[in-house]
């Protein structure tokens, strides 16, 4: 780490990216529930209303479909909106506008129209918020052609990916695990862009590749530490964006170690983790010494009570156990 690099939280890094782009591009605006004077339920829009005012930081009624419709229409008409859907659980309420409009307008028009928007939403389990405010539903939109998805794990990536998302000419869904909001790390000052579709090696290693994104990167790093104590050198790779997926880097990483575990904060069944596992298994088959493994959340709703809730977050012990099975 460079000596003079400042440390800020992931949440502050996202806000910094938005504010920089807002100063640069007058066509941008931010819309959502309680995002203005209230500055968001997690203070995730802190300072934006004070700087940019009512016209560019807009509070809505409790109408996710309506506000998202507005966002898509404004994007096609030439603006560059960011819409906040408070929890990814509420993606259920915008699905028609997202799947049948935002994702398809460019393709179905034969390329004449663009839909440059960012849908910012919170994922993750913690704080006993219960089954409809704790879901990690990125696998749903990932299945729909025409949508891009980013999920940062560090403050620096959060800033860089948000900047790239705002400048992208497609609908980009930006997932922040709310349990990482206060995570601090070095963040470059000034312009910082992390191109969508570029994975990042978060830790070098030679024996096994742990693929994880968003909060699960930190679970993977913890597992890598534990594995090191057992004499196993684990590499941690963070795809950073789910669509587009940096298949080349992932396959290359797995080919070098011959073993891989994919860690996904969403439900394991029919999830992103399974898709990534299949992708690296196909691409690196000739180099594999063991089947590609998955660790994800169990297949049940997120319960509220604290000990029950904890079951829904993949942890380092589970990752270590999977790796040990490969050597069994």
């Amino acid at each position, binding site marked *: 780490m460079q000596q003079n690099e400042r440390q800020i939280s992931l949440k502050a890094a996202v806000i910094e990216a938005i504010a920089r782009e807002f100063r640069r591009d007058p066509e941008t605006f931010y819309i959502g529930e309680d995002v203005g004077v209230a500055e968001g339920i997690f203070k995730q829009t802190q300072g934006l209303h004070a700087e940019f005012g009512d016209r560019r930081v807009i509070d809505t009624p409790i*109408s996710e*479909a*309506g506000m998202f*419709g*507005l966002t898509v*229409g404004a994007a096609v008409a030439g603006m560059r909106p960011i819409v906040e859907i408070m929890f990814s659980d509420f993606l259920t309420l915008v699905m028609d506008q997202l799947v049948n*409009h935002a994702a398809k307008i460019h*393709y179905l028009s*034969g390329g004449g129209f663009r839909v440059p928007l960012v849908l910012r939403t919170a994922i993750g389990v913690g704080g006993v918020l219960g089954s409809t405010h704790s879901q990690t539903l990125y696998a749903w939109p990932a299945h729909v052609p025409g949508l*891009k998805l980013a999920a940062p794990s560090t403050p620096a990536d959060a800033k860089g990916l948000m900047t790239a998302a705002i400048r992208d000419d497609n609908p980009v869904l930006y997932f922040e695990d709310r349990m990482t909001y206060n995570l601090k790390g070095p963040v470059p000052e000034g312009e910082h862009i992390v191109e969508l579709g570029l994975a990042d090696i978060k830790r070098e290693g030679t024996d096994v590749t742990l693929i994880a994104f968003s909060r699960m990167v930190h679970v993977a790093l913890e597992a890598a530490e534990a594995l090191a104590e057992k004499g196993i050198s684990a590499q941690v790779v963070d795809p950073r964006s789910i669509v587009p997926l940096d298949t080349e880097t992932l396959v290359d990483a797995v080919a070098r170690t011959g073993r891989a575990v994919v860690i996904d904060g969403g439900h394991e069944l029919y999830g992103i983790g399974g898709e990534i596992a299949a992708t690296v298994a196909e691409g690196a088959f000739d180099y594999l010494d063991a089947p590609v493994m998955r660790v994800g959340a169990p297949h049940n709703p997120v319960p509220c009570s604290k000990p029950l809730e904890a079951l829904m977050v993949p942890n380092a012990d589970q990752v270590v156990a999977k790796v040990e099975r490969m050597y069994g």
Partner: protein
Amino acid sequence: MIEQTQALRIFESMLLIRRFEETVIDLWATVETEGHRHVYIGQEAVGATIMELLREDDLILTTHRNHGHVIARGADPGRALAEILGRADGFNKGRGGSAGLTVREAGFLATTGQVGGGIGLGIGAAQAQKVKGRGGICVTFFGDGGLEEGIGFEAMNIAALYELPVLLVCENNSVGVTTGRAQNEWSSSSMAAETLGDVPRALGIATEVVPGESVTAVYDAASRLIGDLREGRSPAFIEMRTRRWPGSRSFNPQLVTGVTDLAGIWEPGSVTGEHSDWINRYDPVIGYGRELMRQGLIDRDEIRAMDERISGRVQAAREFALSSPLPSAESGLTGTFA
């Protein structure tokens, strides 16, 4: 008051839509028998008149029943027909088809067959127009079924709260419909409200109900509301009531009223048969032709000449569309992302 040149332009536009749609139905009976299409016959007065009132920088959202809107806005009928037939030279390279036909250059933001979906998108277009501040508006067309979806309520509430310059044109073509699904007909609207306008009116939106087969009535109400919108007064809603064209069918509209015989304009007695009541009372093309003749704005020979000109254009459009190749299969695998 409609100026003479406007009146003639509107009538010509209505006749163009009618001949275009008759061709669409004929092509589906003879060339392309698959898929679905939603024709605009019986609603021509609405689309042609609204388009006459719009500026070039206005934005438009339309639905699966879009052909009339697109043609009335001045888009090339040949490329429109090619799109409807799924051909490579269609406005959307054959990807949108009949229900998804859309034309960026003509100000269409999107065409969506998701019932009510455009009401949501339209408030975004209106937001963009408001930010631009040049008096541009958004017109969102939707059917009576559009209000049965939840998005309509949310979007109207937001439009009213933010005072967005959007004209909501509800084309209610369910008036007088007594058949419905059981007879393989489109179903009729089913709102608990006494009139559709009660819903936006409750939100403080200016609301009008207009007989949609009357150019004069459509013009008067729409020009007043559009003028208000350009001056910055809140959203507006018009229910355009039209009597369902008897040939309307799910998937396979039938020309049960025949290829429109314009002699019905100057010889009402020539209109006979099972559907003569619809033609005499509710066919907007016949009705407006009669009105223009009464006003002395056009005569029989001029109507015949106009029809000949239009039929020539539609014939050329038909030949263009049929000669356009189908898109190559691999062309469909590009352009998911911008």
